[in-house]
Each structure stands twice: as C-alpha cells, then as structure tokens.
C-alpha cells in the first residue's frame, strides 16, 4: 500500500493529471484506507508542492497543475467517504475583495484547503464587504481569507474587519489576508490575524488556525 501511496504522491507532485484517476482507482480497489489515501498521498503531495513553491523551485503553472491533479484524485474519493468521515475538519470562506478581479492565488488556496479536508466556500471576486460579513455570520467559518492584488482595493480588507467588529462577530473568526500589495505590517495595522506571503503559506496558516480550535 505504501508503494501506491508514494506513486500517487509523486503523480500529484509531477502534475500528471492524466494518470491520477487510474492510480486512485487502483488504490481504492486494493482497499486503501481513504483517510490515509487523502492525508498520506494527496495532502502530503501538496505539502511538497507548497514547499517547492515557497523556495521558488516551481511557480504558479506547476502549482496549478498539481492542484488540478490532486483535485481529480480527490473527486474520486469524496463520494466514497462515509457520512462521519465526510464531517469536515473546519470551514473557510475565501474571497477577493470589492473592486478586484484577481483570483489565482485565492483559487490555489481554495484547491489546496479542499484537498486538506476543509470545507471551502469561495465567494469569488469583487465581493462587497456586506456580502462577506453576511456569509461569515451565516456559515460561521473558523477562517476568513481576503485577497487583493490592487493597492486601490486594499482598504476593503479593513472595511471587512471593521464590519465584523460592528456586528459583534470579529472574535468568532480568524482573518488572514494576502496579495501582492499587502504585507505583515498592513495586516497588523488593519487588525487581521495573519498575512500569507503566498498560497502555500496561506494554506499553512489556515490549517494552523483550525488545529488550534
């Protein structure tokens, strides 16, 4: 079983999206423990991919194809998970803030967090402050991730945090921010809980917030 887990892991790392489904099917036929298959093959692969990205050994094209490969494998496993196994480890809401249409980083984070067993609600791009906060109130996620690529839209992040506070739910969710123009100093200034320099770091932060719950 270890051998096939390693093969699946390497297939995701290499982004061999045409080969993953057959391999995952084979593992399932060989009665692989599904939780192990997800954690030790798929998530472990994305941990390696994230690490390589952080070291600039690979870039967004390779991250994307690995994430797509991982998702293809996960889509085969998901319907087989029993109801109790389906209970997610946590909930995350992601969005790109109002006025901003950039979403690659956010999409990568979404794919990788889903692969990690989290329930991800991706609100998309150009999302109003009110909609974000309404959804946080409704869904009660552990983590809210806000993305912006434009300096003109950075202030929306602070607006979200302020509205969470006004509605009395700021303490109920961890807020992480990311995107090219923001940094750790800005995150502190606006009262966010964390700043992720890239998608891989954002995933680590989200997972650490949920593990601490």
């Amino acid at each position, binding site marked *: 079983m270890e051998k096939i887990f390693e093969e699946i892991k390497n297939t995701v790392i290499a982004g061999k999206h045409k080969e993953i489904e057959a391999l995952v099917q084979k593992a399932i036929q060989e009665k692989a423990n599904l939780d192990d298959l997800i954690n030790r093959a798929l998530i472990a692969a994305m941990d390696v991919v994230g690490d390589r990205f952080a070291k*600039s050994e690979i870039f*967004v*094209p*390779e991250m994307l194809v690995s994430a797509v490969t991982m998702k293809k494998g996960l889509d085969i496993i998901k319907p087989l998970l029993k109801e109790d196994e389906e209970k997610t480890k946590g909930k995350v809401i992601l969005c790109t803030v109002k*006025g901003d249409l950039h979403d690659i980083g956010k999409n990568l984070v979404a794919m990788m967090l889903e692969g990690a067993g989290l329930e991800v609600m991706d609100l998309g791009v150009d999302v109003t402050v009110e909609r974000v906060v309404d959804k946080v109130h409704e869904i009660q996620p552990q983590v809210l991730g806000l993305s912006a690529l*434009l*300096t*003109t839209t950075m202030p929306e992040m602070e607006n979200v945090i302020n509205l969470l506070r006004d509605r009395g739910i700021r303490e109920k969710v961890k807020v992480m921010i990311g995107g090219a*123009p923001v940094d750790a100093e800005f995150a502190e200034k606006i009262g966010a809980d964390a700043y992720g320099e890239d998608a891989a770091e954002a995933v680590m932060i989200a997972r650490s917030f949920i593990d601490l719950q």
Partner: protein
Amino acid sequence: MKTSSYNLVMSAMFNGRKGERPPVGNPTSIVCHGLMDAAGVSFPEAHLDANAMADLALAGHEILGFDTVMPEYSVQQEGAALGCVVDWGNRDRMPDNKNFPYEDFSDVVVPDHLLEKPSMKVVLEALSILRRQVGGKVAIVGKVMGPWTLSYHMAGTQNFLLQIGMGETEKVTKMLRQLMPVTIAFAQAQFQAGADIVVMADHVTGNLVGPYHYKELLLPIHQQITEQVKGPLILHVCGDCSDRLEYFAQSGVDAYHMEWQVDAKMAVEKIGQRVSLVGNVNNPQVLYQGTSEDVHQQVRYAIAAGVNIIGPECAIPLATPMENLRAIVEAASEGY
C-alpha cells in the same frame, strides 16, 4: 549636452552622457486623483478620447515635472481591439476585461485594420497631439502589451498558466506567435505617430512564472520583436525578476523597467552595461502609504546605484498623494 527633458531621457536610454541630474520618467501610469483634478481630465474619458488622453499625459510633465509624457494608462487597448469586452472603469478603478475571447485556444484572428479600432487609434492620435505640443522637448513614451500579456487577456491568466503547467507548449507558443504581430504593429505605429520610446509590458511576472518559462517560451519571441521594431524599447515586467535579468538583457530591449523588489545595485551590476535601468520607487508602501522622506530615500538609493531613469516601479495607485510624486522629482533635482 543641453539640459532638456528630452535629452536627459534619450541619453539615459542608452547609458549616455549625463546632465546635471538624472531624468525622471514614467513608462507606466502616474495618474492619480490629484493629477486628474489638476488637469481637469478624469477616467474613463482619458482612455477613450485622444485630447483628454494627451492632456492628462502632459499634466505629468507640466504639473509634476516628469521628463516624459506617457498617454496610455490602461493595459486594455489591444484587448478591446481583439474582442475583449472591456469595462473602462472610472475615477477609482482602472479598466478590466470581462471575457476571454480565446479561452479555448482557437486560432487568434487579428482583425483587418487593427490600428483603426477605436482603442488603438486613440493612443496613436494622442501621441501625435503630444508630438505637436512637446516634440523634441519632452520624451514621448508609447506603450504596447507584449504577446504574453495579450495571451492572459485572450485566454484568461489562470487558464494560460495552467496550460503551461500541463506542458501544452505547442498550444501556448501558437497563441504567443499569433499575437506577436499585434505587439509589433502597434509599436511601429506608435513610433510613426510620434513616440520617442515605446514600453513593452509583458507580464512574465516574478513569483508568477519562472525564469525558465521566460527563457523557453518568450525570450525567442522578444528577440524577434526587437529585431523588427527599430525604435528604443523599454521592457516592463512586474515582480521580483532578479532571477531573470540576464535573459532580459538578451532580449534586445534597450532598457528594463523594474519593481522595487529588484535591488537596484544588483541590477545595475548585473546588466547595467547592456540595458539601461528604469525605476524603481515602491508603490504600495512608499508612494501610496509612505512619506516624502521615504520617497526621497528610495530615489537617492536608485540614483547612487546607477539607475538611469528614475520613476515609480509600476502604474501608481489612484489614491497616491501628489506630494509623493513631486518628491521623486525633487529628489532627482539634487543631482547625482
């Protein structure tokens, strides 16, 4: 050498004779709310009307003191002509395209009379207006999108990058080669219309794609572009491109416009003898949120490093305070 804006910029483009001070230039937009108010011209009309476009560009020189005038503020002029539905934005928001006409990577059809399309024609007319107004006195800078950026607009950025990740080299190269003539034609037309320099913005952005992606997929195309476009060219690429400077130096461009993440000293040492360097005052932390002292510090650092033309690192945030833009000019006026 007579100290005129034009002379200072053109000499600096080729690392030539220095004047009393380094030139201050903008390969990318320096439009902010303050400049719009001072010029009496706003977005979106400055993207679509030649006189408005030219007036706002001129304001960069007459009101702020930049040595260049650059009339193209958006990155969507070619996209609109090639079939993108463009939202031209407003005073607070730059234009953006709402669709990707070639997300299936079918053959790109470049329309006949491309240069007559309104979004292309307006730039050429604005350049001609500026040539009549300040030709020979202030350096007139045009701008084109390179084939990589155009591919983002045609196919969608994530889609394009995913195809690269999937190893679809033939598909990707085909699109780049089909878009290359657009870059060449627009650049040549801009020189004919009155540009002294043309910026080619091509977003093989640092941290987005690797240096090996540039080398394999785009460098050969840039070399063909620079072979055919004879006028002075500045390459603009965002992000930390420290790892690909050597390749940029091989592309045939005359200058590279860099972001703050590229250390000016290192860049000048590495490629400064082969291409001129332009930039690279930080936008979000310094120009937008910083003080004029912060700006002064970065400008003096760039000058000491040997950057040839001083300016912001990229198109500035629309809420940038005017005093910080003036601070660039003031810091450069202190000389070398």
